[in-house]
């Protein structure tokens, strides 16, 4: 084997090694990105389910009058859960989306737990139910 052939073989071997190494790294990166997308997709799904559960409980509460301690506690718990899910989405979302989600979640809480919330004299409020549905829809649509 002359020197040129040996150099070509060594070079080719090195190239193949580098190629294999790059391939492995690239595959790893793609897998990580896919995992990240999967995680994000699952998180967004949980977030939307959380928002929907919050909307359903708040709508049931404001569809009827008077106190319902169980619903009142549940509405407050939903607010905390959705906040936690927004926090979980922070790492894979823009700060604009996070701020918008927090602002809409605050707005939902403000409307759902305002005025006669937790009052025996509270009256059913269909207009409020409609408003809550609109906010919940906007909140669910923040993360793509």
């Amino acid at each position, binding site marked *: 084997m002359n020197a040129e052939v040996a150099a070509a073989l060594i070079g080719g071997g090195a190239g193949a090694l580098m190629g294999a190494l790059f391939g492995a790294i690239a595959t790893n990166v793609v897998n990580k990105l896919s995992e990240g997308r999967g995680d994000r997709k699952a998180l967004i799904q949980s977030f939307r389910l959380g928002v929907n559960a919050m909307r359903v409980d708040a709508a049931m509460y404001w569809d009827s009058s008077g106190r319902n301690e169980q619903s009142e506690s549940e509405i407050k*718990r939903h*607010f*905390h859960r959705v906040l936690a899910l927004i926090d979980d989405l922070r790492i894979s979302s823009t700060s604009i989306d996070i701020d918008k989600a927090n602002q809409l979640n605050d707005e939902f809480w403000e409307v759902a737990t305002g*005025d*006669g*919330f*937790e009052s*025996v004299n509270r009256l059913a409020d269909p207009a409020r139910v409609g408003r809550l549905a609109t906010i919940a829809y906007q909140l669910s649509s923040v993360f793509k």
Partner: protein
Amino acid sequence: MNASALVDIGRDFSRVPAGRHVAESDFSGEAFREKILIPKLRQGGTVEVLLDNTEGYGSSFLEEAFGGLVRVGGFSYEYLKLHLIIVANSTATNRYSAKIWEYIKEAGSGKP
């Protein structure tokens, strides 16, 4: 300035604070303001209010308790900024804390 007082709502008032007015609940925002907050603030020192350790709050409770300090109790926003410290150690209670200061400010500017 006098010494500071610490109020842990969950320990000193209720783990389930609820409602706006006393007529609606013994653990309403009005009850908290009248029985605990105003007497502590009238002592002249700073009052630290810990929001953690409850199941959460409705906006009606927080607005009545803290917005009512201005609207009913006669305290100014500036006085409260110097004498009232809201302590919040979680994501949720931090959001409540921001709302409390909004309510105090709105009550000071005559908004409902």
